[in-house]
């Protein structure tokens, strides 16, 4: 099982394959990645030391502390712990002395595989695993080289443990003592990485580095940033997306003590009035007293009921082809009694992270500084610079820990950054924090799109699906953006983010036809944790349950039988789930179980739930989950993500788990009418089982989200005899 020792060349670090060590201003070692070609960069033997390391990945301080820079925003997913673990393991660092810091926006912190600095698609670990291993191993090699030279021995006579190099004859030196000599050594181009059996941190349950600060109130989130002279800005936004300010009466607003300024700013679509004050409460009181005359002419006023009606009609016609497999006429030859035709409805969903959107910008004439919980730092830095008339390099862009995101902070139009920049530009010199109230956050759009699915399944005499005809209707948030991913994701007018889960189906559907319509609607939409799988896996997994029920087959056995031979991770996770969910066969009266599985970016999750009905709502007594995510870098973090992701996925089953529009206005504004799961709605227990694997690690943030909703409604069917195809689940 243990792979042989890997020898890796610098080139596998993608185009940024060159690292360089230098001295920190305070002493100690800084290891950085450089973009320049190695020759040019190495000519200057001693790069200028910098106290704030815009390009450092590892710093070894004189007191032995090791600071590891994380090239990803921390939103709760645990990258701020897992990436340092990976680096520290190869470095053989003393983990108790390791701390993490979030990288600012910078070329060097771009994802080494996709070339954008970002989080999204659960890519932090899969895409930076190799990168952080190599950084750790190369830093270690330089420290060993320094020790070997000092002792007059060869490097292979030395070993390392807990930030100490040990040599022959009881020699030892702490890393912090070796930094000056290590700095003078060239970074190795080729380095040996550990074999799996040598891992000391990778694969072990390791607690989060940021846990204590998040439990004692000391963790600084973006909303907690406090700078001298800071002003607070709120926006009076148009009641309908795209509305424009025709005029406003701010006399009452200006009477609020502490108000500094009130002015109109452009939005990505339409315009708004910014209200700036010394304090949040003053800004809010003033904003709420604004009388704005909105120009809503010439813009669509979307309405959820009308949209569903329109989508349902559209679903009756074939759209642009996403999948065409086998014989399109096969359905026609299957008798009507062996065909199921069904429709599904999915509403808009708000991400609603606990920390509402906010950020701080300070504008100076030839420079600016920003503090942002940022999913795509380099894009947002560029957007900010554009609004301010600066070059991106004139904007110092700090990335701050976010109180959740789930996709909400990762917009392609960087709208909140542009808004804050437009406000700050009017108030040069002052740091301005733009705060979205919860109401602003929830009504601001950028939702998971609404979808209607229409599916017809033709069943063969052996109970297995023979023909699968599927039409998906919903907005694309990629088509027409001009973003780099558009060319990759959009083929034949079909947005892969709307159809994923169908075009990569793990099941054998001999004759499969999937098509999609992407209507244009005046509601901004966005990736939402698990993206297309959130609805597509629901459709597939509930229909499979219908088929398994019809075939009188066990739902896990039925799925295993239907899996394609290459759907390996589905097979491993379903098989493990089967072993671990023996409780399915001995349930209390009026309890039932349900099964579902889904993939996301090469990770598979299979889930079983035990459900009863209490007060006309599903009560989820337990969930058992099996996941195959390749090598489990931090099993504790994986367990945490699996549990949390399941609960996040319950949002769409909540009675109030929908964003709806009426006459262009969003009907929900806070957690009273858009109610995600609270503790009593969540499974009482969730046990997580990880498929043992030595394969490349894949992500875990999004994969658990799609499985619970179909598993729960599959269980409910066993209790009520009803199928639930329209979400949210308003009645049972």
């Amino acid at each position, binding site marked *: 099982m243990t792979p042989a020792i890997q020898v890796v060349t610098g080139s596998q670090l993608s185009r940024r394959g060159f690292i360089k060590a230098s001295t920190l201003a305070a002493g100690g070692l800084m290891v950085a990645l450089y973009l320049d070609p190695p020759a040019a960069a190495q000519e200057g033997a001693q790069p200028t030391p910098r106290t704030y390391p815009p390009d450092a990945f590892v710093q070894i301080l004189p007191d032995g502390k090791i600071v590891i820079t994380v090239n990803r925003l*921390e*939103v*709760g*997913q*645990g990258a701020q712990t897992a990436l340092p673990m990976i680096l520290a393991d190869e470095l053989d660092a003393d983990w108790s002395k390791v701390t993490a810091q979030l990288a600012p926006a910078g070329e060097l912190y771009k994802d080494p595989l996709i070339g954008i600095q970002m989080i999204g698609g659960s890519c932090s670990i899969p895409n930076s695993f190799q990168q952080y291993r190599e950084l750790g191993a190369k830093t270690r090699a330089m420290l060993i080289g320094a020790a070997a030279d000092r002792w007059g021995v060869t490097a292979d006579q030395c070993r390392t443990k807990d930030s100490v190099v040990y040599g022959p004859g009881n020699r030892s030196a702490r890393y912090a003592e070796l930094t000056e000599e290590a700095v003078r050594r060239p970074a190795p181009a080729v380095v040996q990485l550990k074999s799996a059996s040598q891992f000391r941190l990778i694969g072990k349950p390791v*607690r*989060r580095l*940021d*846990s*204590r*600060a*998040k*439990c*004692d*109130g*000391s963790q*600084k*989130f973006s*909303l*907690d940033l406090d700078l001298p002279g800071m002003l607070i800005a709120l926006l009076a936004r148009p009641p309908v997306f795209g509305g424009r300010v025709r005029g406003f009466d701010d006399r009452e607003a200006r009477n609020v*003590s502490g108000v500094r300024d009130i002015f109109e700013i452009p939005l990505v679509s339409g315009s708004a009035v910014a209200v700036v004050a010394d*304090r*949040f*409460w*003053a800004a809010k*009181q003033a904003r709420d007293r604004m009388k704005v005359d909105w120009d809503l002419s010439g813009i669509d006023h979307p309405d959820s009921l009308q949209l569903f009606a329109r989508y349902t009609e559209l679903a009756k016609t074939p759209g642009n082809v996403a999948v065409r497999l086998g014989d399109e006429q096969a359905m026609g030859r299957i008798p009507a009694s062996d065909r199921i035709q069904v429709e599904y409805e999915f509403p808009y969903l708000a991400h*609603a*992270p*606990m*920390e*509402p959107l906010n950020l701080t910008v300070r504008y100076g004439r030839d420079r600016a500084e920003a503090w942002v919980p940022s999913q795509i730092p380099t894009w947002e830095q560029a957007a900010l610079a554009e609004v301010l008339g600066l070059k991106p390099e004139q904007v110092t862009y700090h990335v701050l*820990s976010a*109180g*959740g*995101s*789930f996709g909400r902070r990762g917009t392609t139009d960087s709208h909140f950054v542009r808004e804050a920049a437009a406000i700050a530009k009017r108030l040069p010199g002052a740091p301005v924090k733009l705060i979205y*109230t*919860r*109401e602003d956050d929830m009504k601001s759009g950028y939702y998971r799109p609404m979808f209607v699915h229409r599916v017809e399944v033709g069943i063969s005499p052996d109970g297995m699906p023979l023909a699968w005809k599927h039409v998906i209707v919903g907005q694309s948030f990629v088509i027409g953006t001009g973003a780099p991913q558009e060319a990759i994701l959009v083929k034949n007018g079909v947005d892969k983010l709307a159809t994923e889960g169908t075009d990569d189906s793990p099941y054998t559907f001999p004759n499969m036809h999937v098509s999609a319509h992407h209507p244009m609607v005046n509601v901004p939409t966005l990736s939402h944790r698990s993206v297309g799988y959130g609805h597509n896996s629901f459709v597939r997994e509930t229909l499979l349950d219908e088929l398994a029920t019809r075939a009188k087959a066990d739902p896990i056995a039925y799925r295993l039988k239907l899996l394609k031979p290459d759907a390996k991770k589905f097979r491993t996770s379903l098989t493990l789930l089967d072993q671990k969910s023996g409780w399915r066969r001995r349930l209390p009266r009026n309890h039932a179980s349900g099964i579902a599985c889904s993939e996301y970016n090469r990770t598979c999750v299979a889930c079983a739930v035990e459900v009863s009905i209490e007060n006309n709502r599903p009560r989820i007594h337990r969930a058992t989950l099996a996941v195959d995510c390749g090598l489990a870098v931090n099993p*504790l*973090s994986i367990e*945490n993500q699996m*549990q*949390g992701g*399941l*609960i*996040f996925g*319950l949002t769409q089953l909540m009675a109030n788990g929908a964003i709806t529009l009426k006459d262009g206005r969003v009907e929900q504004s*806070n*957690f*009273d009418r858009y109610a*995600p*799961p*609270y*503790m*009593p709605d*969540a*499974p*009482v227990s*969730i046990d997580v089982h990880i498929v043992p694997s030595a394969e490349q690690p894949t992500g875990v943030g999004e994969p658990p989200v799609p499985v619970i909703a179909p598993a729960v409604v599959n269980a409910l069917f066993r209790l009520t005899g009803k199928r639930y195809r329209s979400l949210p689940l308003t009645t049972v």
Partner: protein
Amino acid sequence: METYTLTVNGQTKEVTVDPGVPLLWALREELKLTGTKYGCGIGACGACTVHLGGVATRSCLVPVSRVGNRPIITIEAMAEDPVGRIVRDAWVSLDVVQCGYCQSGQIMSAVALLKSVPRPTDKNVEESMGGNLCRCGAYVRIREAIKAASRQLEGGVR
């Protein structure tokens, strides 16, 4: 603007604010106690939970003018509180947090529960914690941490 004298974490503090300012914003912006979080402003998420006169209270709903002489305890004081320390340590030990934004409020609710009911039933836990929203979905671990803290309290570690 009015000046109010507040007893926060055992210390006497003066704030000069509009009488309508919610305690949440006085704590955050005047006293720089930013551990107490803004999540909804309508008492629907629990992120702003503090102990007011010993009772778990949504500080976003209480105007400063209505605090009176009731002592205010925030997350920042939990390090000095015997139950608070046990709860916090249980949270860290079980790796409860993800984004962590709601956890100040969760911990304040949990401490209030354990101070009044040291051995809570599952139902007690759901009732006391049922108004604290966690979008990361840490509920399973929060339940476990409360049980672990309760066992610690039983063991007489005070």
